[in-house]
């Protein structure tokens, strides 16, 4: 009795192996965008170089549900991965959120200096948390855009400030700044700006343009509010089912695609910021005293975020130490 069973099982395993693995990956980004195009091209290369042993299937436009739903589907094996904002990996590797600390970075050069030193730690942290990732992809700086000029923390407290639903980081940052935010889904933002239900938000320039929010605000505050990033993540249990040789091929192509997008997004955000100015948004400039005050406010907010457990004091000190080193050059 046992022998036929073993043979049947062996045949089944052989069959699965012969069929190869299809990595099912979800993302909120719609088809046709550069991010999907780039990863689809990488998937074609993987298919070719593994001779069909590893293929990828993408579910774009959020058809598999919101980010939380996608993570649940990965846990139960319906999906194998996602192209996802790093903020959603707070439970996977807490200190990965250090990049989202408010007003941590002032320039892209500072970002590059820190990321060169810390990205690998983040990638390793995600892997230990059960996710194989392939490098971070910059989402750009989120800037405050508003109907009224915003310079100080007190100005900010007076705004009807929007944050997205189910966004723990934004919620904690708002709390740390003493803001009582208005929580809405993305689909309600433009209408709420029109009706005055909200009058301020923080968003990367590419989003501010793409979602047409710029049509309902007048000002952009000349200080990066926070840095955003995303990553292609595959459930490590699934990834380990791929042969070591094919893992190398998959990693090579997905790393390369992520790097391309990381660079492309930088350029896009800079151009999108310029386009916002061309559309007539007024830059809220601040003098040295005002800027120093705002940055001091943001440091206090970071301390509160550490108390909330958003990221550790050690990592905050490490990163701010690097930034001090960079700024003193």
């Amino acid at each position, binding site marked *: 009795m046992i022998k036929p069973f073993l043979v049947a099982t062996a045949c089944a395993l052989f069959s699965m192996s012969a069929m190869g693995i299809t990595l099912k990956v979800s993302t909120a980004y719609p088809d046709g965008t550069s991010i999907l195009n780039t990863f689809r091209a990488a998937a074609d290369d993987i298919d070719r170089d593994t001779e069909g042993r590893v293929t990828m299937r993408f579910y774009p436009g959020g058809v598999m*549900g919101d980010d939380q739903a996608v993570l649940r589907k990965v846990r139960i094996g319906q999906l194998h991965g996602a192209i996802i904002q790093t903020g959603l990996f707070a439970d996977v590797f807490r200190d990965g959120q250090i990049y989202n600390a408010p007003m941590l970075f002032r320039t892209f050069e500072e970002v590059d200096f820190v990321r060169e030193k810390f990205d690998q730690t983040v990638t390793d942290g995600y892997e230990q948390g059960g996710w194989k990732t392939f490098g971070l992809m910059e989402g750009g700086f989120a800037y405050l855009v508003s109907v009224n000029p915003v310079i100080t923390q007190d100005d900010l407290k007076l705004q009807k400030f929007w944050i997205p639903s189910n966004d723990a980081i934004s919620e904690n940052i708002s709390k740390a700044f003493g803001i009582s935010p208005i929580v809405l889904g993305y689909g309600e933002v433009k209408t709420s700006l029109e009706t005055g239900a909200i009058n301020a938000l923080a968003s990367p320039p590419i989003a501010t343009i793409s979602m047409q929010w710029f049509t309902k605000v007048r000002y952009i505050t000349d200080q990066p509010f926070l840095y955003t990033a995303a990553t292609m993540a595959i459930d490590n249990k699934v990834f380990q089912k791929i042969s070591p040789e094919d893992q190398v091929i998959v990693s090579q192509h997905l790393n390369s695609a992520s790097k391309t997008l990381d660079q492309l997004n930088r350029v*896009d955000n800079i151009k999108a910021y310029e386009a916002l100015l061309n559309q007539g948004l007024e830059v809220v400039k601040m003098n040295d005293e005002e800027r120093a005050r705002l940055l001091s406010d943001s440091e206090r907010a970071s301390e509160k975020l550490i108390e909330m457990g958003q990221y550790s004091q050690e990592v905050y000190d490490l990163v701010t130490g690097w930034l001090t080193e960079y700024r003193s050059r």
Partner: protein
Amino acid sequence: MKFRLFLAIALPIVLSACSVARLPESFNTAVLNNPDMATVEAGLPAYLLTLDGMVVNYPENVSLLQTSSTLYGAYATLFVAEPERRRHMVSVAYQRASAAYCAVMKSPCDLKEMRFDAFEQHLTKVDKDREINALYILGSSWVGVIQENSNDWNAIADLAKVQTIMEKVAAVDPTYDNGQVLLYLGVLNTLIPPSLGGKPEVAHAYFTQAMDVTEGRNLLIPVMFARHYARLVFDQALHDSLLQSVIDADPETPGLWLQNVYAQKLARELLASSVDYF
């Protein structure tokens, strides 16, 4: 994050082909009822050059500018493969539509340069038939420019104005341009996925209304319905049935024959890639 959602806006660039309906009557009939795209491709450039010469002589002739605009846009969309040439041609189309709009409106008319709130204010003054027509042709040509400059964030930002233009025209007459204005709005409302706040149900309503208005004769509408809506919401059954209906349909419809042949070609290509996509 990478919200470059609309860089590959994949707007139905062929839409401008529909505006061929504004060609002088005899030529219009010949082009739109010719199912041989190769003949049209070979013949149209001569007419483009003729129009260029006429525009030089009559730079403020609204009808001439608009015909030239729509024809340039249509030719670029349907027949020109080289990006540089396409960009040039849609730019000419936009410039002529813009000149025509200014000739009609007289007052400040450079919509591109207006702040959005001023632009909205300006549109409240556009109400006469010829003004609406000039606005619609300008909006149609603007779509082509955005499509061909989809890496330019200034162009992407202009989508907000184009959408507002189409909403204005549809509010005046939802059957405008044989329901084509609804098709624009259908596609524009698929550019943001539901996960990021998009409202595909609004797009669905526009596509359905467009199909009703044209009583199924305009085969480009179901093709765009499949390509932009069904793919967005991942509805393969709807996608395939819409495309199959286009392939099975008789393309010979007065004024739409050429476009319908093109739509059937697109439908076959999309249906062939259905398995890979879904």
